[in-house]
């Protein structure tokens, strides 16, 4: 089956005065129809830029410098602006982080909804208004008919994010990119919004790319998860495997750094030493090598491809079966559950 979204070797560059920065470097992933893909990574890892690149709204001077983006098999990264405009909203919907600022304060909710609907569909004003009301009902806004004539400031944050979801889904897109949809909300509202997003997309068979740094949300919602580090793919695979048996040293560090309510409150959280490099100062070889406990010479010289690693794929030489790491490294790695699936002793020297 053709994936809803297929990203191949995507490269996003930002020209600056001090040279060209690579915000996204050689990133590939697919999203199957109806699938929810979680995008995780630290701030600056390139999650949001990936989303913006897909929907064609990179902030200038950022630009797609290489690779392909295909939506249901059709290339969309080179479309002329006017055709790309019809992809946005109609085929790809996007939800932003802050519902308080995503809605134009000067227009009624109903006006913003019907405007979006009429941009993409040939409907009468009456029919568009009916559809707007159905959408509001669908996202769980009580007394939808009256709320159509309310202004954004008359809604609470959670309600506004529901309106934003209704707006993003107004023209029934095949793919919804949700960029930190719950970060700005109260914890008690977050779960409702995530459940709503998941249900409403499942009803329509829409795929979701869920960008967040909240592993809890990912574990709850996503089918698969894609971990980014410094604009590069670290690991991608089914959410259960990535969370329970991470195969990239970075993912492992990330999972260990999540506090658990059940854990001992006095226990110190694990940390990854150092911090993610700035885009202008990515080390040669694997971007993670200066912070990695298992780095060896090759990691400092060559960039790893994504290798199959158990149920996931990890961009780490620990998983290169053809050219395995030194036995000492592999031994240490396998003790913590990382490394090639075969026992280190069996690896041909």
């Amino acid at each position, binding site marked *: 089956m053709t994936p809803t979204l297929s990203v191949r070797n995507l490269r996003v560059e930002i020209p600056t005065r001090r040279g060209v920065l690579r915000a996204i470097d050689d990133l590939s992933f697919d999203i199957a129809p109806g699938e929810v893909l979680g995008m995780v990574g630290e701030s600056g890892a390139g999650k949001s830029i990936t989303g913006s690149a897909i929907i064609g709204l990179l902030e200038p001077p950022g630009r797609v410098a290489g690779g392909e983006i295909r939506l249901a098999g059709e290339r969309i990264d080179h479309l002329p602006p006017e055709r790309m405009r019809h992809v946005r909203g*109609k085929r790809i919907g*996007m939800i932003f982080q802050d519902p308080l600022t*995503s809605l*134009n*304060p*000067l227009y009624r909710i109903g006006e913003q909804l019907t*405007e*979006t609907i009429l941009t993409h569909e040939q409907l009468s004003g009456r029919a568009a208004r009916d559809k707007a009301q159905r959408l509001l009902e669908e996202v769980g806004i009580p007394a939808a008919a009256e709320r159509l004539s309310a202004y954004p*400031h008359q809604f609470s944050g959670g309600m506004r994010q529901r309106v934003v979801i209704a*707006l993003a889904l107004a023209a029934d897109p095949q793919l919804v990119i949700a960029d930190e949809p719950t970060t700005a909300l109260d914890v008690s509202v977050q779960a409702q919004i995530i459940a709503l997003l998941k249900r409403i997309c499942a009803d329509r068979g829409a795929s979701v790319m869920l960008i967040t740094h909240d592993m809890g949300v990912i574990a709850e919602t996503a089918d698969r998860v894609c971990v980014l580090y410094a604009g590069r793919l670290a690991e991608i695979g089914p959410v259960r495997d990535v969370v329970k048996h991470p195969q990239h040293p970075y993912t492992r560090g990330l999972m260990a750094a999540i506090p658990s309510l059940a854990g001992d409150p006095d226990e110190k959280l694990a940390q990854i030493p150092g911090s993610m490099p700035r885009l202008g100062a990515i080390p040669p070889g694997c971007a993670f090598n200066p912070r990695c406990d298992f780095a060896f010479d090759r990691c400092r010289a060559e960039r790893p491809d994504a290798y199959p690693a158990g149920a996931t794929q990890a961009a780490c030489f620990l998983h290169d079966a053809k050219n395995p790491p030194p036995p000492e490294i592999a031994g240490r790695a396998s003790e913590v559950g990382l490394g090639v699936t075969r026992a280190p002793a069996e690896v041909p020297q």
Partner: protein
Amino acid sequence: MLAFAIRRLVQAIGVMLVVALISFIMFRFVGDPVNQLVGVDTSPEDRAALREALGLNDPVLLQFGRFILRAAQLDFGISYQFKQPVAALIASRLPATLELSLVSAFFALAVGVPMGVFTGLYPRSWASRAFLAISLIGVSLPTFLIGILLIFLVSVNLGWLPSFGRGAVVDIGFGWTTGLLTTSGLQSLILPSITLGLFQMTLIMRLVRGEMLEVLRTDYIKFARARGLSRRAINFGHALKNTLVPVITITGLQVGSIIAFAIITETVFQWPGMGLMFLQAVQSVDIPIMAAYLLLIAFLFVTINFIVDLLYVAVDPRIRLGGARG
């Protein structure tokens, strides 16, 4: 909405009373009104009688009350200089100033807003840079210099437009004379309007540009783009409308100051308006005209501000209910 309007109205009346007080103090205590009215050879007895007749011996508060009562009936006394009622003098000069001011304001808006939108949308284009450079000239050159330059260039060297006066005017009833209906009237209006409006135009352009740049960076514009709305809907529907609140404020205040500061332009172009009359009044210490002019300008400012406040509410729903809810 009505409560809001009434609150603002009460504030406006308060402001007017304060200005009236200043105007009254000037009228009553800057020089002796009696001295201005009588000749050098008037006897002290006659002076005392006139003082009594004018009510100048009454308590100050009573005099102030009378002043306000008269002003409310548009009675500002007799001009020392022209020996005519001030109200009639002002009424005969008002149309010239108002026409000049409104045409200037219209020019400033009609040119300034589109230029501001353009420079905001295409900040890097050639035309934008040219507009900004021109606007810098408009902001930094004093009005009288622009007027003189225009006269020198267009009237003297090219001979296209008249350099002074109002041209032929037509009386359209209620004592209102207009220059908008005759060719020479319209021709005479062009240079003074540009002179008077140029500064406001560049101000409005820079304001709209700044606001556009700001608004185009907001999340709701990003979200509007992500929904695939057309460029026109985004730029003019969503972005421009959000820039309007500050633009309305500034434009409103500027209309007031255009009227008030038409003095200079009217002098340069010998425009027969209130400004020119005020300047002549200052030269001959014609206090009643000065006091009335002060009141009139204050009244215009207050009225315009009141209208601006009501316009806010029409544009921005968040102001409607006395502040936003979280």
